[in-house]
């Protein structure tokens, strides 16, 4: 996003809207400017419609900068996955895809969340840790398309310095691996210059119990949240791989 210097009146109304705090007053001038290195092209300032003089404008985005918009503006569809938002269906369609099966968990590391943003080199650091543990990285996730080698988690060099509002490293694991993964994430957390939020997905057993609730993650400082998501199994057709496993009584 850019600000047309000739139109900006310096009212600064756009400033608080920026999730990256990348808009600021220019010292000693009646003018606001966007720090292009910090801007993630999310479009929040423009959509807020607070600029009365029409000074905010979206410049054409070229590779690799265009990645900022695809990872930061929820309206932009990821062309690789066809899904808007952060570009992955994860557990939201698990009743149909059967992506996460019995004895397995889905995990996702959401870099830059909450509200901080992440450079892709930090996303790569986490991807490399996940790959080094031999965990299968979700192929239908836009982050995976940035990798030159899914086995090592290495990203293309030309994208590394791009900054995005959030990017998700998504992978499958076996239930018993979770504590070790969380411990490794606690380690890599010290090496990134941002924050990340971690998801833990689990199929509900036919008797209604949730396998991950039996894990001791509190001792690693990472207890399960009180808020969470529940797929209530209304999708059709049902995933073939889960036939006979899930409760299908309705």
């Amino acid at each position, binding site marked *: 996003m850019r600000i047309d210097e000739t139109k900006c009146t310096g009212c600064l109304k756009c*400033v*608080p*809207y920026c*999730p990256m705090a990348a808009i600021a007053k220019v010292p000693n001038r009646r003018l606001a400017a966007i720090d292009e290195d910090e801007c993630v092209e999310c479009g*929040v300032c423009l*959509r*807020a419609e607070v600029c009365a003089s029409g000074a905010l404008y979206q410049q054409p985005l070229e590779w690799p900068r265009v990645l900022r918009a695809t990872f930061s503006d*929820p309206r932009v569809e990821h062309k690789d996955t*066809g*899904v*808007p*938002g952060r*570009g*992955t269906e994860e*557990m*939201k*369609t*698990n*009743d*149909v895809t059967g992506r996460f099966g019995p004895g397995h968990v889905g995990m996702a590391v*959401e870099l*830059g*969340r*909450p509200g901080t*943003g992440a450079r892709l080199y930090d996303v790569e650091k986490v991807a490399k840790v996940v790959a080094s543990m031999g965990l299968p990285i979700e192929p239908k996730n836009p982050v995976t398309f940035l990798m030159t080698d899914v086995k090592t988690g290495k990203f293309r060099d030309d994208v590394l310095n791009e900054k995005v*509002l*959030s990017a998700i490293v998504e992978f499958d694991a076996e239930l018993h691996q979770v504590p070790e993964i969380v411990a490794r994430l606690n380690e890599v*957390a010290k090496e*990134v*210059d*941002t*924050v*990340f*939020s*971690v*998801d*833990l*997905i*689990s*199929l*509900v057993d036919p008797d*209604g119990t*949730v396998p*991950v609730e039996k894990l001791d993650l509190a001792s690693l400082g*990472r*207890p399960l*949240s*009180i*808020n969470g*998501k*529940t*797929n*209530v*199994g*209304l*999708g*059709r*057709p049902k995933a073939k791989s889960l036939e006979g496993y*899930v409760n*299908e009584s309705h």
Partner: protein
Amino acid sequence: MSHTNHRQGTRENLSNCFVTIAMASQGINTAGASQKLQQFLDIAARHNPVNAGNMKVGNLYVAGSMEKLSAGMEGSIVQAAFNSEDDLVGFLTDLNEADLGVSVVVTGLMDETKKCSEKAGLHRHTVEYSLGVFGKTERLPDKSIMEISTMCGHGQVSFNLVQRMVKDVTRGVLTLDEATMTLTKPCICGIVDPTRVRRLLEKMVAASIKPALHNYIAMDPSKCDKCYACEVACVEAHPNNSSQPMCIVDASMGPAISLHCLHCASAPCMKACPTGNILRDPEKDVIYMRGDRCIGCKLCVSACPFGMIVWDEKGGQAHKCDLCIDRLKEGEVPACVAGCPTGALSSADNAEQFKKRRTLALQTTLAAIPSAQEM
């Protein structure tokens, strides 16, 4: 995507706050999904949604109505938010019956969503928990700001905007409702519950009025009847002080003023006392004397810039106003204030005093500007 998975909050403020989402799976059941997503929104509309959204259009408040969310359903994801268990159960029951065939996910407190799913006759298929925030958490703002900001998992509601809204409401630039809308609109998906935003914001506004003044007795000389009832009440309330009041009515300079200890932030009397007889109550921020350690040196009397330490010749001890701290802790006003028959004395908490003074300043300023009165 998990844009609702990392909502922060307490059990109390996340209770009865639900988000539902419907989507088709790429390459599996996308055929005819547009109509099904539309039906999802139509059914939601019957159950008092507090917000709703279509990823391709925006949220309910940007679109203006549920009907306007319908434009462009192709390849989209739709959302609806509710703020009561009854509405959620009603919605899920209808969805179960409609059997649309698109996947539906409910977010909320895990035990509440479990209960509601069961009531609607649904079995939980897959669940997702958050393990919290890792990394440079020192870069994050206060928890209360994140409780609002994380309601939009896509990070479209900036931390700074939340802070700005608190300031705008505190200063009367925006009403609580206007600020709530400002924070609800940037979330395209329509998953921000404005009723929760409003509640959280209201709390933050109340907490943001920082006490610039410590506890003290305020005095309106125009109401003073010079009756000394405050002094009498003080003596009654402090039977060990040899009948000496610690508030003093003085009219020698013209208007009658009831003088009180100011309970200084950096109290010279407390610093001067060699025996630790003068203390500050951490809860009420009141300077008081414990009594039993006074050796009668009178250093505190000399140290007080306002002459508010009372020397008790008979008892050989110094006394000072303790703002009737025992009464304060019981939620009562000091004895002098309670004893004043004309309302010349008042004791309010810090925030109230601060507000009162601001209001007075505003009134005075407005009265001085003729054009302002026509606005």
